């Protein structure tokens, strides 16, 4: 009897039943895994798409377009460079609010306020600025001990929200600032590494208190210009300094700080002799109020915007008004004349701001802008201001994001039409919109190169658009070679993800990403070679990851008709991209070692960032050699490629969270997104395992 007789072929309805069972299982698993992935995504994005409160502020009037156009051009020095007022406002607003816009309702209208408007309000309309929801807080529970209750957990508060008083009459503001001070004193001398959980929670309170206090100072920074000193009877100084009394008697506006300025030192000496309360030792009556207000205004004027260029050509540091007055008030630089012009110009702006819609305000602001711009240019500073304003106005990356979303939608529609005119038209639409997105992305990167005078990647923020661009270029070229549609669809999706990440990172980081570099990084040669090369390596690793994820999901779903051909095609693609990743990661890593040898005297120091780059190289080598050893085939390569995505993300972001090493300039806190990515990777890995096992069982069933 032949062996065939002992293993009879299954009846047709049995085979169909097995296939049908697998199909059901496939659909169930795809839905399950997609739900889990979407849940991770939704959890990662919680709060990001939260609808923000529209704050009602009666009497709020928006700034005119003319005022905004002038204001944004005012040069400001911050972070070591001279930049436009609008850029300074952008990152200050991010620091406080974590967002670039807020909505204010007034007179039945909703006004959208951007960074420049917000900063103008903060400087020139402090009574309105106090009501703006400026402070972002992610856990409002920490404010309950200070009497601020009934707020949503994640919310935004204004200074007036801290006006609530307890039964003893203490405001939440006072209690918060006092507590912040206490915490900082308690933590003084304690290394952050040794913080307990309570210390960490306390530190958050202290940091928030500092933020609130600094904004309080910020909006009061120009009080010194507004003539708010209490009136005093200067004749009481007679007998201490008669000449001073004579001079003060001629003053027409004794409430104006400016008129007291030239007499400050003599005034301080004379005030010492005034009668005092015997019990407290303090000055009494109007003079007490005067001295308090004089000190308050001069102290708060040190906050605010560093927009006054130095007088001396040797000095490089621009200052706030108070910092500029400081040497004069302290008596170390008795000549007030060099800063007289700045004081006068700013005073005109501050006074005219009482009617912000008036021509007087616009003229005063224009005059101040022209004066500081002229001086900046004469010092060889601020040449990039017009270009930088255009860069942010053109919003390249936002447009690129929009085009990539459209391209992805077209490509998604194209999956339903594989042949015919509609498929061709959709194909062209995908190509055109994708190229438009790439165009905007490249234009943004190139514009930044011209503005900063540096290669495209010089900080963590810039890695995101550049790595996205590298990945898209790789996918675009692969699409050109293979014309399989899948790559351009993936490219559109990667473009959306990359640029969305760039926006989120900028919002979370809150630091100006065009600021100059520290000495060790300031090498265009090494930035252009090592950093660019290693970033392209990251692009490759992530593209291989995404290709394998797509392969896993499509294989599990069973929608591919020619699964064997598709597997071969995708595996080759991943293999090719892994080779690409290896090449750039290896060259980039070694270039980094050579740079380190020139900077620190050692080629390799096992620093976390160096190790991260090495891990990518090793991962690629493991895949390539295990394949040659016959240990990896189709699924082995894809599963390792999926895990490889985590290796790249660990190298790119994860090592920065360790808080050690010489690459401390790259550290970032709160990069929780990394852990969500790891979670998503694990799910994708499980998808691969499931698809692989079902494929095996399916093959076995069909053979039987």
């Amino acid at each position, binding site marked *: 009897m032949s062996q065939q007789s002992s293993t009879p072929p299954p009846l047709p309805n049995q085979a169909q039943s097995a296939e049908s069972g697998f199909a059901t299982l496939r659909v169930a698993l795809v839905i399950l895994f997609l739900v889990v992935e979407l849940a991770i995504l939704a959890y990662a994005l919680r709060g990001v798409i939260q609808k923000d409160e529209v704050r009602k502020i009666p009497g709020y009037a928006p700034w005119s377009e003319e005022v905004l156009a002038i204001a944004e051009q005012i040069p400001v020095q911050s972070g070591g460079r001279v930049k436009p007022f609008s850029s300074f406002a952008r990152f200050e607003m991010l620091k406080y609010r974590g967002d670039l816009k807020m909505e204010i309702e007034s007179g039945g209208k909703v006004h959208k306020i951007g960074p420049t408007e917000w900063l103008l309000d903060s400087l020139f309309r402090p009574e309105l600025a106090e009501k703006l929801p400026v402070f972002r807080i992610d856990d409002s529970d920490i404010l309950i001990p200070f009497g601020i209750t009934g707020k949503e957990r994640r919310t935004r508060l204004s200074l007036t929200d801290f006006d609530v008083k307890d039964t003893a009459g203490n405001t939440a503001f006072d209690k918060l600032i006092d507590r912040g001070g206490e915490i900082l004193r308690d933590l003084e001398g304690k290394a952050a590494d040794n913080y307990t959980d309570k210390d960490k929670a306390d530190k958050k309170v202290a940091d928030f208190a500092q933020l609130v206090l600094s904004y309080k100072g910020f909006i009061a920074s120009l009080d010194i210009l507004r003539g708010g000193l209490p009136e005093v009877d200067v004749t009481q100084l007679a007998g201490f300094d008669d000449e001073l009394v004579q001079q003060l008697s001629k003053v027409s506006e004794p409430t104006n700080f400016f008129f007291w300025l030239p007499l400050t030192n003599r005034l301080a000496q004379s005030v010492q002799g005034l009668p005092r309360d015997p019990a407290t030792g303090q000055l009494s009556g109007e003079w007490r109020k005067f001295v308090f207000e004089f000190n308050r205004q001069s102290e708060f004027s040190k906050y605010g915007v560093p927009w006054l260029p130095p007088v001396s050509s040797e000095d490089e540091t621009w200052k706030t008004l108070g910092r500029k007055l400081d040497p004069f008030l302290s008596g170390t630089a008795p000549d007030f004349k060099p800063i007289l012009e700045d004081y006068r110009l700013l005073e005109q702006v501050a006074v005219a701001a009482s009617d912000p819609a008036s021509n007087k305000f616009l003229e005063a602001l224009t005059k101040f802008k022209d004066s500081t711009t002229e001086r900046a240019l004469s010092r060889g500073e601020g040449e990039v201001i017009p270009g930088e304003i255009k860069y942010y106005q053109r919003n390249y990356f936002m447009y690129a994001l929009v085009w990539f979303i459209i391209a992805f939608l077209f490509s998604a529609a194209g999956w339903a039409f594989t042949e015919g005119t509609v498929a061709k038209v959709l194909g062209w639409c995908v190509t055109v919109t994708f190229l438009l997105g790439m165009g905007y992305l490249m234009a943004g990167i190139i514009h930044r190169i011209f503005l900063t005078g540096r290669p495209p990647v010089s900080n963590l923020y810039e890695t995101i658009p550049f790595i996205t661009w590298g990945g898209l270029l790789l996918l675009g070229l692969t699409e050109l070679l293979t014309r399989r549609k899948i790559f351009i669809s993936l490219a559109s999706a990667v473009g959306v993800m990359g640029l969305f990440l760039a926006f989120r990172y900028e919002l979370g980081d809150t630091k100006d990403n065009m600021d100059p570099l520290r000495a060790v990084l300031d090498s265009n040669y090494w930035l252009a070679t090592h950093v660019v090369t290693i970033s392209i390596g990251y692009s490759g690793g992530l593209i291989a990851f995404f290709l394998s994820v797509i392969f896993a999901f499509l294989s599990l779903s069973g929608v591919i008709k020619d699964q064997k051909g598709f597997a*071969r095609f995708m595996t080759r693609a991943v293999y090719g991209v892994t080779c690409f990743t290896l090449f750039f990661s290896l060259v980039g890593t070694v270039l980094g070692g050579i740079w380190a040898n020139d900077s620190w005297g050692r080629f390799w120091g096992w620093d976390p960032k160096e190790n991260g780059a090495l891990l990518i190289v090793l991962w690629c080598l493991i895949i390539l050699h295990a394949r040659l050893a016959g240990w990896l085939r189709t699924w082995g390569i894809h599963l390792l490629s999926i895990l490889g995505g985590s290796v790249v993300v660990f190298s790119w972001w994860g090592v920065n969270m*360790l808080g050690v090493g010489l690459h401390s300039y790259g550290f970032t806190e709160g990069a929780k997104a990394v852990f969500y990515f790891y979670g998503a990777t694990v799910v994708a890995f499980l998808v691969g395992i499931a698809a692989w096992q079902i494929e095996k069982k399916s093959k076995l069933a069909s053979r039987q």
Partner: protein
Amino acid sequence: MSENQQPEPASAVDPARKDKKSVNWGTRIWKIISGYEVAVVCLSLLFVLTFFGTIEQKWFGLWATVHKYFDPSSFFVVPRNGMEKIIFLPLPGTYWVIVVLCINMFCGGIIRMRKGWKKAGVLVSHFAILFMLIAGAVSSVYKKEGHMLLYQGRKSDFAQTNFVFDIEIFKYNEKGEREAPAIIDDKYLEQLSPKNAVTATFEKFPFTAKVDSYLPESALSLAGPDNQPKKGEEILDGFFLTKVKKDVKTEEKNLPGCYLTVEDPDGEKIQRLVLWAGNPYPVTFTYDGARYGATITRKVWPMPFQVELHKTVGEYHPGTQIPRWFQSDITMINDGQRSDHEIYMNFPARQAGFTLYQAGWEDGGDEPFSVLAIVKNPSDKWPEWALYVSAIALGFHFIVMLALYASGNSPRSRKSAAAGKVSNPTPPTLEKS
């Protein structure tokens, strides 16, 4: 041949399996040590070790972790997560895994590898990477580094090592200047524990010096009513040495200390001193009417040339504490030959096998100074050369692969393949027949 019928890929290992039984032991061992399997195991171990050696730095700092994972003296390591062990099974030390990988690469990736123009790129890149790893080994054995503190307008002909200490004993001349010291070398100090001692004799001095109670990590305390020794430490001149916890994150904070007894040749105690590396001044004693000094200090590394610092300058970005640049203008004087150099970040000066880097500067105050890091590394430039070679070789290889892939995957090739025509003679494929 269609895509579906392509031959098995570069399965160079597999033919050997067919006649496993017939080959001798030597051949089998050769095949193992030169095989892909050993490469994969080594690469995987390196991956795991590098990963744990990275995250462990969070708790134990760079220096301690590097020493634990990557030092040649580490044959086995047990990864930890904070104070917890992650894996109870010890992993081999990284250095030795790299040694095995090098052997495997040499045997398999150079000797055994198929030779041909298609594999030329991989062959050359293997050679270059091997050369790079050898550069690392040479560096780990022969590299020497230290720091030179240079005040503006002055010269120096020595550096000090970063972590190695020895004891210097010297005589003061009549002018109160130090004469050339006698050294109790670090190799003797390293062998000491708090309970044993070493006695040194000197050709140039008539006395001997006994070192005891040596503590590699110590602090010098001033004895007082509220601060008395808790473990019976000896008080000398009001001071006593205490053992402190090793700072694993910042190795340079670990300062050794010891007690030193000066004895005459008959063994009679002349004076007992306490030495501590954090003390900037030597401890002095008198013997036979002459004044001597003793200090425990970072090991001096004499340079074969003099370095003169003319100017040290630097700048911060305005309004910040972020350094923009800093520079030292120096002259190196070697056998009367003078050469001028400007050293700044990313631009070291190289001379006579030594490389001088700008490590720090202070241009304010009465005496501006620079701190120069000095490194002598015979394999200084080897990785750079290896990079150029491997980049060209790998680039060549992958371009060839890409060309082959592209020729087999163009729409035209796919149509040909679908029609059963031969399109791609030897494309890489991953399916086993």
